[in-house]
């Protein structure tokens, strides 16, 4: 019986050890840099002196004492910041269209909803309104390349006006622009799309439409790529493909002389409200009433139709942080409780309570900053890997300065909130009580 107990005990101990070392191996990217720093601290005098001078040396050494707990805690923080970095970057990229929308641009759609069309004559009428600098009419083509699942964001546009309205966002070679204007079957392709399908200028591309067919019944539309545009700034969307409205309109089997919406550039953002009123008033009580909104508002409502990304991100990040808060807080409280006697000894040797308070807080801050920094670096790496794939369609997915700044604030907050209670306990700890605990 005893023999059997010993065997079972040995098996469990072995399993425990195996799990421990498996976890330590998996989490090595998190704690390995720390151990390297720890080695350097002990062997490079000026680093150690700097830590001593800032009261960081002892908190730093304390983090080394229970490797498994340290690795688990830092790993938990690492995961939280990995999620934070990736999700916040995704949310930012989704909202980039809203943030980057120009203040002087408006969108006019059918008042019923934006899938309903407007007569092409509206373009001419709106151009005449005071305050309208330029406008371009656009139609959603519903394009795809070979497979209906390979959707291509394609628009039939007034090719002569596209750059007048959106030229501030798009970077296009002058010759390519001229060639595109000249060729009715010319296609202007965004950099991301070209990269995704390996398209280049001169390629003949067949695009299908899941909405429109030609008069001969065919749904395949033939194009020649005449230009590839890029964004004038990093987060600009280069997922779109543009072709001549004339080619579209003349070949259509149904619904000709209709446009999807108007992209309008005003002479000054301050007169937007006036222009909006003038446009919508012009078509009031007509069979095609309009609704004109600033581009920012239009993009925002468009994203909102796909779901509240912000809410999903906030909920996920909050849940992750709450769990991490509990884990790290508990871990810190446990660590300080275990060190009660040592804190008593330090106070006896002459370390003031305030200094010990600071050290405990520094320790939780260092944990949060270490896990957070590695987590953020990992999310940056993941984002870089994802966006480097030509199949990835989301422009502007990146960790920008704002996200990094917010993450640093979160690290400090996490460190403070998880360290404050143990630090106060250490501050209040009576030396005699502390020394009596072993």
């Amino acid at each position, binding site marked *: 019986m005893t023999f059997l107990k010993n065997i079972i005990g040995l098996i469990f101990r072995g399993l425990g050890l195996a799990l421990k070392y498996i976890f330590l191996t998996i989490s090595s990217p998190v704690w390995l840099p720390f151990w390297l720093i720890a080695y350097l601290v002990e062997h490079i005098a000026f680093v150690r002196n700097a830590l001593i001078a800032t009261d960081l040396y002892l908190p730093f*050494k*304390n983090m080394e004492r229970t490797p498994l707990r340290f690795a688990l805690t830092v790993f938990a923080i690492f995961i939280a910041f990995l999620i934070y970095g990736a999700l916040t970057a995704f949310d930012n990229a989704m909202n980039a269209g809203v943030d980057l929308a120009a203040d002087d641009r408006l969108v006019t759609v059918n008042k019923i909803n934006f899938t309903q069309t407007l007569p092409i004559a509206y373009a001419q009428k709106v151009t005449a309104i005071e305050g309208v600098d330029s406008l371009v009419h656009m139609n959603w083509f519903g394009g795809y390349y070979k497979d209906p699942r390979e959707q291509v964001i394609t628009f039939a546009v007034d090719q002569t006006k596209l750059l007048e309205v959106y030229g501030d966002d798009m970077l296009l070679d002058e010759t390519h622009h001229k060639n595109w204007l000249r060729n009715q079957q010319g296609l202007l392709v965004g950099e991301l799309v070209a990269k995704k399908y390996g398209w280049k200028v001169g390629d003949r591309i067949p695009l299908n439409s899941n909405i429109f067919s030609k008069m001969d019944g065919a749904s395949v539309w033939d194009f020649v790529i005449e230009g590839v545009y890029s964004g004038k700034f990093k987060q600009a969307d280069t997922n779109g493909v543009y072709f001549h409205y004339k080619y579209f309109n003349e070949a259509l089997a149904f619904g000709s002389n209709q446009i999807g919406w108007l992209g309008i550039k005003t002479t000054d953002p301050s007169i937007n409200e006036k222009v909006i009123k003038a446009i919508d008033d012009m078509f009031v009580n007509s069979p095609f009433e309009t609704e004109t909104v600033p581009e920012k508002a239009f993009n925002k409502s468009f994203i909102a139709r796909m779901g509240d990304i912000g809410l999903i991100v906030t909920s996920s990040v909050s849940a992750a942080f709450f769990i991490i808060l509990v884990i790290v807080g508990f871990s810190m409280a446990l660590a300080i409780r275990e060190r009660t006697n040592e804190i008593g000894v330090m106070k006896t040797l*002459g*370390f003031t309570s305030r200094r010990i308070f600071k050290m405990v807080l520094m320790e939780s801050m260092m944990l949060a900053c270490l896990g957070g920094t590695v987590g953020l670096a990992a999310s940056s790496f993941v984002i870089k890997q994802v966006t480097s794939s030509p199949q990835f369609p989301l422009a502007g997915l990146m960790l920008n300065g704002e996200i990094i700044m917010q993450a640093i604030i979160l690290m400090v907050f996490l460190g403070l909130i998880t360290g404050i209670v143990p630090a106060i306990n250490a501050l209040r700890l009576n030396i005699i009580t502390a*020394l009596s605990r*072993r």
Partner: protein
Amino acid sequence: MSGKLLYDLKSVSKTFVKGKEKITIFDKLDMSIAEGDFLAIMGPSGSGKTTLLNMLGGVDQPTGGEVFFNNSRVDTLSEGQLARWRANNIGFIFQFYNLMPMLNAARNVELPLLLTKLSSSQRKKSVETALKLVGLSDRATHMTSEMSGGQQQRVAIARAIVSDPKLLLCDEPTGDLDRKTADEILSMLQLLNRKFGKTIVMVTHDAAAAAYAKRTLHLDKGVFVEKDLAA
């Protein structure tokens, strides 16, 4: 008792309130310690030895009376002032060594020096001297968990003397050691007293340990019952 007065306790009282009960540890206790003294305090459990030692070390405050150290009153100092005073004047040696497990021997010894403005090289020199004095120069980089009880207590002694304090307070310093090791530690304390002039106050249950001291005071129920002035 001869020599310059280092410590002077005048009519010191210490009472605790436990529930509705008031417990008196000392009532108007007088005590003087001269510089260079090696004093052993003995007495049964609960006699107030450790409380007295804590008071001498400034980790506990009297509820009445006056405490003078080097002619300066210390019982009126704030917590922060007391911490600085302890760092400058007192070295502590505990029964269970109380070393920091995450630091090696040299780093443990260096700990009190982190409270000073000494440079890195000055700290290193002081640590080397202290470790040499306790015979542990060759174990400086060893973790204390790899050391025997006697070696750990020697590290603790090195930590206590590294900042060159006037007074060493030892709470049962040999209570966790075998006789042979205890004798080594006590001889070391005696050497520190005789050769380096350190004033030592040692609380002990062990008469053999007390024999190393210059004089022994017996405490019972907060009162000194007998004084042995034998040098």
